[in-house]
């Protein structure tokens, strides 16, 4: 429901609760992320909640970033990366918190900028909690593209979907509604996660006994979440995000320091 894929919750759960080795846990989680993304997108796309044009355009940046990230692994130490990533999540959490207090709507309207105009990136969707069709533009396209590139690097490095960075970026920088940001991020995650999942699969980290139940569970959860989002207000999703980003950021930094 939050466009996150849920890998960040699954991995620690498998490791600490069930005592699964970390590689197997990550392998199960990344396949589950592909499952969540595809399953949720089935209904998001039909609801026109997903902005496919924006999603496919930004995928250009995230996939390039993922390839860059994979090359960077050998250059930068993982602990440094975790700390940097953690700090950026805390920053995102802070900005979103300030925004959620300042305004009633979960997003600030921005008109299409020149690039978005040429590629016709703006869109509209029907919000059932507000009972109105919401039309929005996409602003700051180049800046959003740069942030998406970094989100791609992070996901390539850490083997995660990177929704925690993409959703706040699309919402605060490009100025698109929270629900559209969530659905579009979810849409993009499938592609980056598929690349990572294939690597895990090739190296034999996808144990059938662990992965199969996890994937089936994730599919079920994704269907429920994609239906729930219609009935939740954008501002509330934003508040949930503030909390999740805070927890994730702290966890990242702690695990980074731990590795040193």
């Amino acid at each position: 429901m939050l466009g996150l894929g849920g890998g960040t919750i699954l991995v620690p759960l498998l490791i600490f609760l069930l005592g699964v080795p970390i590689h197997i846990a990550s392998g199960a989680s990344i396949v589950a992320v592909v499952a969540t993304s595809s399953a949720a997108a089935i209904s998001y796309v039909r609801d026109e909640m997903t902005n496919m044009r924006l999603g496919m355009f930004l995928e250009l940046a995230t996939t390039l970033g993922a390839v860059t990230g994979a090359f960077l692994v050998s250059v930068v130490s993982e602990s440094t990366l975790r700390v940097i990533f953690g700090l950026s999540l805390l920053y995102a959490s802070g900005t979103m918190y300030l925004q959620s207090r300042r305004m009633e709507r979960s997003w600030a309207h921005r008109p299409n900028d020149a690039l978005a105009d040429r590629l016709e990136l703006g869109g509209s969707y029907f919000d059932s909690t507000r009972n109105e069709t919401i039309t929005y533009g996409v602003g700051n396209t180049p800046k959003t593209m740069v942030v998406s590139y970094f989100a791609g690097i992070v996901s390539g490095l850490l083997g995660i979907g990177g929704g925690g960075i993409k959703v706040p970026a699309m919402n605060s920088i490009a100025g698109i509604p929270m629900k559209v940001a969530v659905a579009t991020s979810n849409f993009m995650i499938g592609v980056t996660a598929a690349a990572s999942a294939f690597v895990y699969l090739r190296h034999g980290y996808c144990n059938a006994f662990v992965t199969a139940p996890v994937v089936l569970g994730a599919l079920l959860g994704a269907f429920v979440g994609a239906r729930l989002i219609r009935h939740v207000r954008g501002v509330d999703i934003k508040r949930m995000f503030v909390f999740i980003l805070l927890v994730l950021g702290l966890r990242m930094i702690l695990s980074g320091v731990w590795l040193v």
Partner: protein
Amino acid sequence: MTSVEKMEVLISNVLKVGVILSAVLILLGLTILVATGDTSYPQGVMDIDWLIWGDPFFSPSHIIFLGFLTLIATPVMRIAASIVVYLKMNDRSFATITALVLIILIVSFTLGIG
């Protein structure tokens, strides 16, 4: 239906087929595994080599593994489908963008990185 709506339905259907097919494969494999009572932890790794040349040649785990592969292929098929649609819509810029994404993705597959 407008061409955009047609595209949404097509993409949604591509995802639906992929997800359902993989879920069926995984569920089938898991059911056979439990039914035959062979729930012991498999020895060795399950990777692409094992899938093709492994011994035994075919097992419930193979079905589950095929399910995983189907799942991973789903987003890739989605991109491939969108290239075709954009070409049909005469949307050159987006056909190029999605084709580039597919190329980058395939490069990352072959490099063995993600």
